[in-house]
């Protein structure tokens, strides 16, 4: 069979046309998403239209890449963090039952393809792409009042696969769940997951994400979370891998006293490009949102932070805070930061701050004068720089997994 491989948006649309009769779930939702994607294309790809939300990130490399097929996942499996908690393993977006554990309340998206209704394929082109082609993912439901403990969701990418998993997490009133999402792999694949999260009243989700994709891979993830009154979303993302990556989080605080934390740390080197974009929308009074995002940039890497706090008219007594800081370790690194406030209620307290600089020479001198070798002193200061963002992760096992990854990253830089 001779196939002319199409790249970019056209390639994905052709794939959709070929598969659409076999894809699970509501065909109308997919068709609408396909139409949105046809119009929008890949931001910065071949379409000339400039989108403000993608000001600093161009998906031209994604548009030019050829995505064909999978390879072996065995090598990547070995790099999985060791943790004693039930896990769901996906290879190139497909659930691997033989590698996965029994998790109560779990259904695969392939078996139960219900779109969560929070995603906005009409607004976000990558979400349109996902909605158009999603064929598997994790659907987790935690019943009211249940503490579901810790669950791992693992994604392994291989070869030149392009996969678009769809995850749906639903926490009913008063329930608790900790999720550790790990994304790793080998190859130059595209991982484009969409996660829809609804947190019931008084429920609490801790959502830790470790993105350590292969160096040549693309990772473009979008998360939507809606939080009812008294509910809490604690999100933390550690971004280490990938060639061009984006983590986009949309949180909506729907009921009084809902809270959201969206922390992140991006550690980049070489020619990596990583974009951390968040939008938190306060739709109810007395809600609270907090965000601390740190970028550590070496080599010729480019870090992007875009964060917006939106406060609706009715969301009086809102408390919103956002801090983003960047450390530039090399003369060729670049940070682009756009923290935004959009406020329509008057009785609010909202602030944001941003700083950019290099390692503090005085702090370095202090440590060096006390006999700490240069590389160790730098490692110490970088670790200290990240603490504020990492402090959100209170589960000790998970925290130590993240810290090990940070240390390993630093050692690779120093070597």
């Amino acid at each position, binding site marked *: 069979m001779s196939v002319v491989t199409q790249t970019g948006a056209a390639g994905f649309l052709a794939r959709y046309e070929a598969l659409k009769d076999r894809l699970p779930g509501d065909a109308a939702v997919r068709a609408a998403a396909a139409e949105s994607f046809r119009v929008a294309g890949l931001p910065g790809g071949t379409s000339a239209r400039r989108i403000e939300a993608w000001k600093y990130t161009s998906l031209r490399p994604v548009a030019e890449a050829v995505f064909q097929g999978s390879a072996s996942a065995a090598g990547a499996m070995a790099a999985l963090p060791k943790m004693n908690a039930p896990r769901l393993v996906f290879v190139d977006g497909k659930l691997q039952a033989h590698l996965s554990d029994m998790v109560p309340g779990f259904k695969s998206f392939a078996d139960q393809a219900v779109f969560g209704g929070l995603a906005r394929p009409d607004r976000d082109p990558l979400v349109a792409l996902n909605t158009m082609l999603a064929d598997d993912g994790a659907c987790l439901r935690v019943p009211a009042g249940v503490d579901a403990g810790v669950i791992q969701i693992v994604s392994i990418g291989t070869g030149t696969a392009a996969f678009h998993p769809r995850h749906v997490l639903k926490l009913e009133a008063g329930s608790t769940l900790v999720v550790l999402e790990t994304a790793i792999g080998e190859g130059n694949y595209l991982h484009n997951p969409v996660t829809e999260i609804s947190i019931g009243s008084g429920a609490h989700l801790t959502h830790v994400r470790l993105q350590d994709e292969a160096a040549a891979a693309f990772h473009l993830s979008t998360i939507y979370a809606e939080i009812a009154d008294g509910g809490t979303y604690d999100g933390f993302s550690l971004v280490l891998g990938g060639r061009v990556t984006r983590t986009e989080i949309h949180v909506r605080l729907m009921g009084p006293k809902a809270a959201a934390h969206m922390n992140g740390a991006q550690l980049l080197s070489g020619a990596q490009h990583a974009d951390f974009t968040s939008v938190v929308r306060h739709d109810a009074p007395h809600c609270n949102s907090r965000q601390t995002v740190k970028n550590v940039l070496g080599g010729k890497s480019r870090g992007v932070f875009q964060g917006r706090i939106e406060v609706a008219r009715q969301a009086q007594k809102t408390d919103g805070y956002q801090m983003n800081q960047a450390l530039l370790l090399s003369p060729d690194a670049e940070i682009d930061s756009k923290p935004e406030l959009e406020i329509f209620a008057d009785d609010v307290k909202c602030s944001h701050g*941003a700083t950019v600089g290099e390692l503090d020479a005085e702090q370095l001198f202090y440590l060096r004068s006390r006999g700490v070798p240069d590389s160790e002193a730098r490692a110490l200061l970088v670790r200290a720089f990240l603490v504020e963002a990492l402090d959100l992760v209170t589960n000790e096992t998970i925290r130590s997994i993240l810290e090990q990854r940070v240390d390993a990253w630093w050692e690779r830089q120093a070597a």
Partner: protein
Amino acid sequence: MSATAEILDSVQSGYKWGFETDIEMDLAPKGLNEDIIRLISSRKDEPAWMLEYRLKAFTAWKQMAEPEWARVTHPPIDYQDLHYYAAPKKKAGPKSLDEVDPELLKMYEKLGIPLKERAILAGVEPDPNERPQIAVDAVFDSVSVATTFRETLSKVGVIFCPISEAVRDHPDLVKQYLGSVVPVADNYFSALNAAVFTDGSFVYIPKGVRCPMELSTYFRINARNTGQFERTLIIAEAGAHVSYLEGCTAPQRDENQLHAAVVELIAMDDATIKYSTVQNWYPGDADGKGGIYNFVTKRGACRGERSKISWTQVETGSAITWKYPSCVLIGEDSVGEFYSVAVTTNHQQADTGTKMIHIGKGSRSTIVSKGISAGRSNNTYRGLVRILPSAAGARNHTQCDSLLIGDECGAHTVPYIESRNPSAKVEHEATTSKIAEDQLFYCRQRGLSEEDAVNLIVNGFCKEVLKELPMEFAVEAQKLLAVSLEGSVG
């Protein structure tokens, strides 16, 4: 006017600069095309190169689209439904103030603009207690009607004249610098301005000269259905120093009027330019009807080492403000500053901020922006701080505070921070809040009315910016804040 009458007047009208002056006008027909541009150019007696420049800009403009990224909404503007040239009728240019239409003089008097060189006319030494002398260039619709103190200034080599005159009398300077900071096709409105600008001020401060007095331009839109497109060019040679003030008002009208100005500043080694604006164009009525569309491009280039450009603005007027006074910091250790107070009430929309482009080593910039929204208005700070790889040791500090009065307005902050040099330090802080209950309570408890208390607190909130204004303007600005916010409390 007695104090009581003044209060009465401001309560009744809300906008006390809203009167219209009945003066015979020379109007170009409505519409925008090459013929109109040729007409403007010939009315101004311009040399051929100037017409060429205009036509080039017009060609560029026709291919451009109106920017849509700002947080403002307005019905589409019909650029063919405007007069692009409006001048008070006169036989020849006035040789002295005595020849200026008395109606015009009356109007400026009403606005409180000193067009008479009082001290000189009286033939006495100026009283040291009197207000400091200010040289004024008064621009009425499309033309400059009077420029004062030109003799005094020319003695020290300072050129202060309408730009249309500079085009004729100092073509080399204008040719060299016009459009060198804001290129013709920089943006939609600057291209439009370059094609049809009619007047504005030209300032040239020679090497090492400290301008002996404040320079000021007073802009007044009077005619109906006209657009005002003024062009200002200020050049400070090495070691020169100048402080320039700009004020604007317009009559009260139901339809919207367009104002698209371009201001270019150039500072060489060790030169300082301080540019202050009190913008009080007619903001429209309480229902959002009428008002000026203020779409302005202001940019300064710090070309020399240790040069400094400082923008201070108090923005209370206009239905829509679209304005980003910027600094391009090219010289080593050059300094850019932006101090801004923007007040919006009723249905006003303001999208304003600054751009600081750091190119030179050790360049520094400071941004202080205070936004106050009341009524149903929207007030946006939009700013860019860009550090290029060459700007080692660059430094920026940005502080943006927003104050909300009432629950139907919006306050927005959209900063862009881009750094490509690790030794640069950039800090940005922004807050949004309402007037604190305890502050209000404290003032009320001491017998201040709620309105006075709010005025006091708002003035305190803006203090960092107001103190940057020259004395003359600071007083006016404080009064303006009070009048603008009138009726928005309680």
